């Protein structure tokens, strides 16, 4: 009887150690971010710059998921307005050598956009609490920054959602 109990305790300890030490143990969980860019009826419309990134609860950057900006302009002219994504610029952008493969991308049209968070970004996550940031800034327009908290590893049923009011529509984070 005692040996069975001991075995059970050891097994429990070992399995939690495995969980603690190996983030890859949860690699079968994936995250999807949905971002709605609202259609605005304004005289001068430019597609917004948008940064999607993950920080710890103290706003320290953990990984960048996507940054959408004018990547096609000559002489990296499109970089000029990246500091308008103020928090992302402070926490990440200003340290980066842009463009970043797999992160930098062209601006997107109004509508719903679904992004699967790439494996390498998930592998950077250790067990703990995080914030997914979605920050948007539009030329001659406004700025909006939404935050979706989550824990990692994520439960398969995870669904966080917020409704933007200005530069963003509905944003969602779900795990599956």
């Amino acid at each position, binding site marked *: 009887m005692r040996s069975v109990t001991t075995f059970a305790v050891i097994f429990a300890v070992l399995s939690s150690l495995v969980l603690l030490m190996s983030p890859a143990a949860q690699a079968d969980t994936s995250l999807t971010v949905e971002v709605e860019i609202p259609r605005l009826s304004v005289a001068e419309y430019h597609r917004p710059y948008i940064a999607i990134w993950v920080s710890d609860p103290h706003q320290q950057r953990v990984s960048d998921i996507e940054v959408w900006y004018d990547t096609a302009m000559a*002489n990296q*002219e*499109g970089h*000029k307005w990246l500091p308008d994504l103020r928090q992302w*610029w*402070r926490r990440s*952008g200003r340290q980066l050598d842009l463009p970043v493969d797999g992160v930098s991308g062209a601006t997107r049209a109004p509508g719903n956009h679904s992004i699967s968070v790439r494996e390498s970004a998930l592998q950077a996550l250790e067990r703990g609490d995080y914030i997914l940031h979605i920050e948007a800034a539009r030329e001659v327009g406004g700025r909006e920054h939404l935050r979706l908290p989550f824990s990692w590893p994520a439960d398969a049923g995870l669904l966080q959602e917020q409704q933007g009011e200005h530069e963003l529509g509905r944003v969602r984070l779900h795990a599956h």
Partner: protein
Amino acid sequence: MKINTSVFKHGLLAAAVCASVISAPAFAHRAWLLPQSTVLAGDEPMVTIDGAISNSIFIADYHALRSDSLEAHNNQGAQVELQNLHTGRFRTSFDLTLAEPGTYRIASASRGMTARWQNSDGSRGMFPGRGQPHNDAAISDAVPDDAENVQIGLMSRRIETFVTAGAPTQQTIAPTGEGLEMVFHTHPNDLFNGETAQFQLMIDGEPASAAEVILIKDGARYRNQQEETEFTTDSEGRFEVQWTEPGMYWLEASYQDERAPAPATSRRGSYAVTLEVLPE
């Protein structure tokens, strides 16, 4: 109008300001350098900067800041050209190309002895004359032998601001060890509303204790009061500012003591910096 009382407390400072390189006949006026952006990105971004002396912070309505002692340096310490330099009636303006990443310092600084005296006929004398550069070697000869009430002070003055391309860097913001200046324990281009910034004032490389500091946010024209905040530095020259509103700020510090090299009997410093505080 609220007048900066700390200036009035020290009559000599008023005189010294009058005589300094930047000609500022009325000591209530404030000298400033105003960048249109402090946080920049991209390939060799450019920024434009104004310099003026005025009553209302960042409203150029009195006198242009003289450009002859104005310098800009990049993070490697190399001097950078002031492009398209223009001095008008009310302001000096110029552009900078930030060819290298990092923090740039734009400053006008001077340090030297200033003498004031009364001549035998009752008239007042001063050296150097208004708008003239310091010349410490000539100061003893400049004061007449029969002068009375001779007061010689070592005066330092610095007006500066900072801009950054990419990530903020530390090299350019380090103090020079001369005059009244600031040690930025919080980087001047990394100030955010809701956070607390740590600053330290130094006089000739030593902590400047009991220095008086005032802080005024831009836009005073559109409010009834100056809403200036006052600070006094502690024994290590330190003070901290908790930002409760984003905006462009003008910070001015003044310091005085009696620890001056002969023939000066007093040492005075004035320091002004423009700081941008970004919203979260």
